Each structure stands twice: as structure tokens, then as C-alpha cells.
């Protein structure tokens, strides 16, 4: 699966492969040609990815090959034990979590999980959690607090699920409770937007001492498509909506709504998952080092103060 702006690069890469095969098969020396094509590809890549529009970043955040929460968790941890269920209704497979270790240190992971193929996508409900998902997340976070383990949340959701049963079981209440409870967690909380960060469904596991976004992700109050349909009364203005919403990592950092941006490999996270996971791991370790030095009560105060300072108004 290729995005429109990935195609010219992919075409050149294919040409490069052909050239390499030709050189090898026919035993012709094409070294200079190969070199110049490689350089050309690199330049094109840099140019393309330096000047991505906001909508193109949204597309990258949803790329079919993009790594999901469990991909990163298994890559980052040595041991990982997944934990299931909210102890009330069921196990929500759109919200995953468990205990794992990063370089020997135990961490509680929580995150939304998308599926890779049609069957998985259905099972994971496209990463849209129900109330029991948010309650499962809270149960795991409370357990982490009890055993003094830091929490890492990986956010990747097109939104909390809008369904009949979700409403019956209190989707609003489940998210609201998470917001309130997460402020009071005594352990360090690190939140990373790894794909889509849609509205309350994302925020429901994104109250942290450190909130990061991967470079090609989005985080806002509404998706560009829904924003277009409401404000422009048409689905055709998603590009404009994406521009207006200022929903990229750079925008959110500029506006002081997140703490940092995690750089992706050139071409996006899906181009080099291992490298991406390594950078994420490094970020988590550095953040923990900093947060470990702060007393729990102070960490809570700082967490509250940070979010309470967000907002622009005139008096």
C-alpha cells in the first residue's frame, strides 16, 4: 500500500532495484549510475518528507504498514505479559495492556491496538475502544500505581467507539473517570501518540507527566473528515480542515499542548520499525530518568499545573 506522495519514491526505488539486478545478472559495472540514483532517491525523500502538508501527515499516521502498539511493545521489552479484561464486562481488544520490562525495568504498558488485516481489524474494532477498554486501562494503571511501576501509554485511535452499547455502558463516564484518576496517579506517566490521537478517545489514556507525539501523527479534538462534515457540511474539505485544526506534532508542540516530538525514520515509522522502536525506548528511558528524581506529590502537582495552564483567552 502506497500513499500518493510515496509513489514517485517507490518508482525510483524499483528502478534502482532493477538496475542492481541488471548489474549483477549481466555483470555490468553500473556503480556510478546506481550511486547517482541512490542520491536522487535520498534527495527526493528528504524533499518530500520535509514539506509534508498536515493532511499528508494524517495519511502517514494511518498508513497501512504503520507499526501498532503491540509491535512497539514486543520490540522494546525483553519480557512482556499481556493482561486482559476490565473485571466488569469483558476484554476490550481495542485496548491492550500488560507488564513488560525495558532494560530490566518493569513498566505497565497501555495502548489502543489496531488490526493488520480485515479479521484483525474487526477484532480490534479499528482501535476504537468501548467503555470497558477505558476501564481496563484504568485497572491496569491503578495496579501499576499499587506496585510502584511507571506507566507508558501508546495512543493510536480514530476515536472512542460511538455505538449503542458503548452509550449504555457509559462511554462518557469511562473517559471522564480516566482523566480524573490519571491526574492522581503516584507513579510516572508517559504518553506517546504513535498514530492517530482522536479527541476524548485519545485523551482518555493521555494524561501524563510527559506527552510526546511521533513526528507523523495527529492529535486533536476531531478528525479532519468529521470537522469538514460539520463546519463545511461536506466531506470534501478534509485538507483545509487538517490545516485549520493545526493537529500535527509540530503544531501541538508550538502551541505548548505536548512536551515533545519523537523523530521518525526518513519516510515514516513504517520504513524502519526497529529504529523507530529504539528511538521510542530511548525517549521513555530519558523521561523516566528525569521523572524519577521528582517526589510523587510534586509530580502530581506539576502534571495538574501543566494541563491547567493550557488555553488562550482574554480578560
Amino acid at each position, binding site marked *: 500500500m502506497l500513499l500518493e506522495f510515496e509513489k514517485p519514491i517507490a518508482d525510483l526505488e524499483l528502478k534502482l532495484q532493477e538496475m542492481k539486478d541488471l548489474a549483477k545478472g549481466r555483470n555490468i559495472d553500473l556503480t556510478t549510475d546506481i550511486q547517482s540514483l541512490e542520491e536522487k532517491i535520498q534527495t527526493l525523500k528528504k524533499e518530500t518528507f520535509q514539506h509534508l502538508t498536515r493532511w499528508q501527515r494524517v495519511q502517514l499516521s494511518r498508513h497501512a504498514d504503520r507499526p501498532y502498539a503491540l509491535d512497539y511493545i514486543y520490540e522494546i521489552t525483553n519480557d512482556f505479559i499481556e493482561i486482559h479484561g476490565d473485571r466488569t464486562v469483558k476484554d476490550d481488544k481495542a485496548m491492550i495492556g500488560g507488564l513488560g520490562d525495558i532494560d530490566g525495568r518493569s513498566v505497565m504498558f497501555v495502548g489502543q491496538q489496531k488490526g493488520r488485516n480485515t479479521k484483525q481489524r474487526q477484532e480490534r474494532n479499528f482501535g476504537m475502544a468501548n467503555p470497558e477498554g477505558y476501564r481496563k486501562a484504568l485497572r491496569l494503571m491503578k495496579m501499576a500505581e499499587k506496585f510502584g511501576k511507571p506507566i507508558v501509554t501508546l495512543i493510536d485511535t480514530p476515536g472512542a467507539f460511538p455505538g449503542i452499547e458503548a*452509550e449504555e455502558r*457509559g462511554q462518557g463516564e469511562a473517559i471522564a473517570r480516566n482523566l480524573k484518576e490519571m491526574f492522581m496517579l503516584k507513579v510516572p506517566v508517559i504518553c506517546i501518540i504513535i498514530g492517530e490521537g482522536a479527541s476524548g478517545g485519545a485523551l482518555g489514556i493521555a494524561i501524563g507527566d510527559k506527552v510526546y507525539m511521533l513526528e507523523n501523527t495527529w492529535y486533536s*479534538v476531531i478528525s479532519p473528515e468529521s470537522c469538514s462534515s460539520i463546519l463545511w457540511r461536506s466531506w470534501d474539505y478534509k485538507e483545509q480542515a487538517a490545516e485549520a485544526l493545526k493537529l500535527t506534532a509540530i503544531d501541538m508542540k508550538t502551541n505548548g499542548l505536548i512536551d515533545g516530538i519523537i523523530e521518525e525514520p526518513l519516510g515514516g515509522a513504517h520504513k524502519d520499525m526497529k529504529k523507530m522502536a529504539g528511538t521510542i525506548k530511548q525517549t521513555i528511558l530519558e523521561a523516566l530518568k528525569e521523572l524519577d528524581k521528582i517526589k510523587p506529590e510534586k509530580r502530581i502537582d506539576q502534571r495538574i499545573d501543566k494541563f*491547567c495552564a493550557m488555553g488562550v483567552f482574554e480578560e
Partner: protein
Amino acid sequence: MAWFKRTDKGIKTSTEEKKDTPDGLWYKTPNGSIIHTRELKNNSYVCPDDEYHVKIGSKEYFEILFDGNNYMELDKDMISGDPLKFVDTKPYKSRIEATITKTELKDAVRTAVGRINEMDLVIACMDFNFIGGSMGSVVGEKIARAIDYSLKNKIPFLMISKSGGARMMEAGFSLMQMAKTSAKLALLDKAAIPYISLLTDPTTGGVTASYAMLGDFNIAEPGALIGFAGPRVIRETIGKDLPKGFQSSEFVLEHGFLDFIIDRRQLKNRLTTLLNLLRN
């Protein structure tokens, strides 16, 4: 020829001679009951014939609740900024200005402190007329400060919600108001100061998924639309019609997310009883 046949065709009264009933003298509820507006006002804006609760704003709620309509408004001059320079079909800035002129409100919430039946109470009340009661930075900040006032003076807090949800034109900033208000409510919770959340028609989206659902007591007016996702979104997602009464106050009570439903005419007295029971 029939004796009742009309010989002159059409309406003969010229436009200038047409007599109008003064606007707003009579109110017709969605169920068809008609009531004089003066009587409606005396009845806490509830139609006595069909118990329909008319959508009202902060002005009316303050009048209904505060003793002698006396109260001190907090942060009453706070107005919205335009952090994102947001433009859709028109610029956010001019949308705000036009709405302020039209509604004579500064934003979608007003906060005040006063007394109800001689008990101190901080009330934050949303106004749906202001861009659908949407929650932007001003709404978040005013509610946060009202909770601060409650905390500092140890006064119970009543939130009256009426909102379509987050204000899209403030995008990320709007989203973080959910976090901000929830943080303040966590502090109020810790200080064991009562928080009563009254949900009125409609309360949806980010407001439901933050302060509206976080009350020690979540109560609602009858027949209000209460939910996280709007009915249209749910219908489109699942491709099915929604059951009758779905997302009504009664439905939400039945599913265990409300403590009780309150008729607006009894609101002040029931609140007083509840606060007394907590205090004594």
C-alpha cells in the same frame, strides 16, 4: 349555489393593516401545549400541561436558584482568543464577535457565587445559545476558576451542563479543557467538597466525557439528551435505527449513570435538602 361559498377570493387585509401577536407572548412546546410566557416564567420554564422543560440559559437558572437573584459573577469579562487563527466558512474571530452581539453573552458559560436557601453555592452554568454551548478555552478556564473558588472557600460546586461538546475552532486547546476541568475536579474530590453535576438538554461529547459525568451526584432534568457520541454519528456508524428513548435522561438513569432525575420546579429545594444532608 351553497350558502357558504366564498365570493371574494384570497386574503383582503393589506400587509400594513395586518395585526401581529407580539413575539414571544405565547410559547408552544414540541408536544403542542401552548402557554403564556409569563406563566412559563413563574413555573421555572416548565410547561404545566406536558411537563416539557424549556431550554433556558444561565440568566434563568441563576434567577431560579439564587436567593433573590443575588449573586456575584466570577470572571465575567473573560472572552475567547483565537490561538489557531481558525477559519472555516468564516473566521472564528468574527464568529465570536457576532455571537457576543447576538446573545449578549461573553462565552458559553457563566460562573457565579451566591446563596440558595441561605446556603453558599458556586454555580457554573452553560449557555447553549453561544455556539452550541461548545467548550473552548474560556469555558474550561472559567469552570477551573469557579472550582478554585469552591476549593478556597470550601463551598459546594454545582455545574449545569448544556453543550454539544468541544469547540472545534479551538481544536487541541479545546480538547485540553477536558483535562483541565477534570484535574480541578480531582482536587475538589480530594478536599471532599461536594460537587453536583446537573445535566440538561443536551449534554454530549467532550462535556459528557469530562466534568458532566464526574459529579459526586450526577443528576439530570427529565427528557434531556445525554450521551458521548451524538445520535446521528451512532446511527451512521452502526447503520441501524436507534431504539426509542435512547440517550434520554431516563435511559441514562436506567443504565446507572445518573443518581436521579429532577423536575426543574423542585430543583432548588431538592438541592437544598441534598446539601443539608451532606452538611449535617
